[in-house]
């Protein structure tokens, strides 16, 4: 239980850091979706320490922080968690580049769901280009963030065989 709380708190801190004001014009357009990277990483490597409820809570906090409709990111992260956790063995057997590519696919699915959902909620067409750019930046940020999560994982919740 303590491990699960610790992993959730660590992921929450990363999400909060990604939302911190950096005073860079246009930063919001390129800010990474840290929650997505966290959920993918934990679902692949330590799903026992990061259950679906943690993904849901992380998504709810993310929605509250960024002002998105409450539950939207929570639902998307649950979908990502479900997709990833169901393919845990397949993903663990891949090389790092393979895992990165799979993350790109999952992130694209998540971005599409978000885009369609926001258009439905706002009842207006939204230019997809900023969402595509945001997706590219998030996929590009996967290596450093997942490396950081791996370091934390080794120290806080070491892998079992």
């Amino acid at each position, binding site marked *: 239980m303590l491990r699960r709380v610790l992993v959730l708190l660590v992921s929450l801190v990363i999400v909060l850091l990604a*939302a911190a004001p950096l005073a860079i014009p246009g930063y919001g357009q390129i800010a990474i979706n840290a929650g997505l990277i966290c959920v993918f990483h934990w679902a692949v490597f330590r799903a026992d320490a990061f259950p679906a409820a943690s993904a849901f809570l992380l998504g709810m906090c993310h929605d509250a922080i960024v002002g998105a409709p409450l539950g939207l990111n929570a639902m998307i992260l649950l979908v990502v968690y479900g997709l990833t956790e169901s393919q845990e063995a397949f993903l663990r057997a891949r090389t790092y580049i393979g895992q990165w590519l799979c993350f790109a696919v999952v992130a694209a699915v998540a971005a599409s769901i978000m885009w369609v959902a926001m258009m439905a909620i706002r009842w207006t067409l939204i230019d997809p280009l900023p969402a595509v750019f945001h997706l590219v930046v998030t996929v590009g940020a996967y290596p450093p963030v997942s490396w950081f999560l791996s370091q934390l994982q080794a120290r806080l919740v070491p892998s079992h065989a």
Partner: protein
Amino acid sequence: MERVRVGINDALEPVMETLAQPIRSLSRGVQGVEGFFDVYSKNKGLREANQRLEQWQNRALTLAAENESLRRLTNFKPAAPGGAVSLRVVSDSTGVFVQSVLAGVGRNAGLSKGDAVVDVSGLVGRVIETGRRSARILLITDINSKIPVVVQRTRVPAILAGNNGATLTLEFLPDGAEVEPGDRVVTSGHGDVFPPDIQVGEVVAKRGDELLVRPSADLGRLDYVRVLTVPRVDLGTGHPAEGAQPARGPQKK
């Protein structure tokens, strides 16, 4: 659902405030280094701006005196003065689909829903959610933002709409309205949405039938902002609007 979101924001606000401190320091350090390299050109620009501002100051003093005498002549009764609260942005949520920021001050400092938010340059947005310790500010660039404005030169009314981009569009202009690039746009005060005559932006381009407006406020570098806690009146009854906090004097947090 709003209470849940506000509750989460109130609970996370101290953590976000703490995490934002080192990032702000780093950001200021980087800006300091950047500023070092263009100090000469900035100095030159500031001298020129100062000269222009001195001319405008003289003009403003003349107009203020003229305004005062006209108010006395017409027995004009101004609206009740409001207060202001200075606060700091703790979370930058300007993203692809939502353009808002979270402030580390809420109802405990007198903020209420609908309060206008400004920075030193112009209108930033309005308060859309208030918790006890936090408040969400919808930026004027958000797609949900629609502001009643007038073009300062011609007093032509319009609606300024956000589109989640860097510029806003002027909509619902009257037919034949004369609006040119360079015209300034200010709040009209219509509908008691915002106090009147707050600088919003400047018309920068005409794209077909669309007029694009660049915001005056530096929305990409929000740090300290001011919330104008102007008492609002229910237009139907003439009594203070429901949920509006009483006006308080200037405060700072």
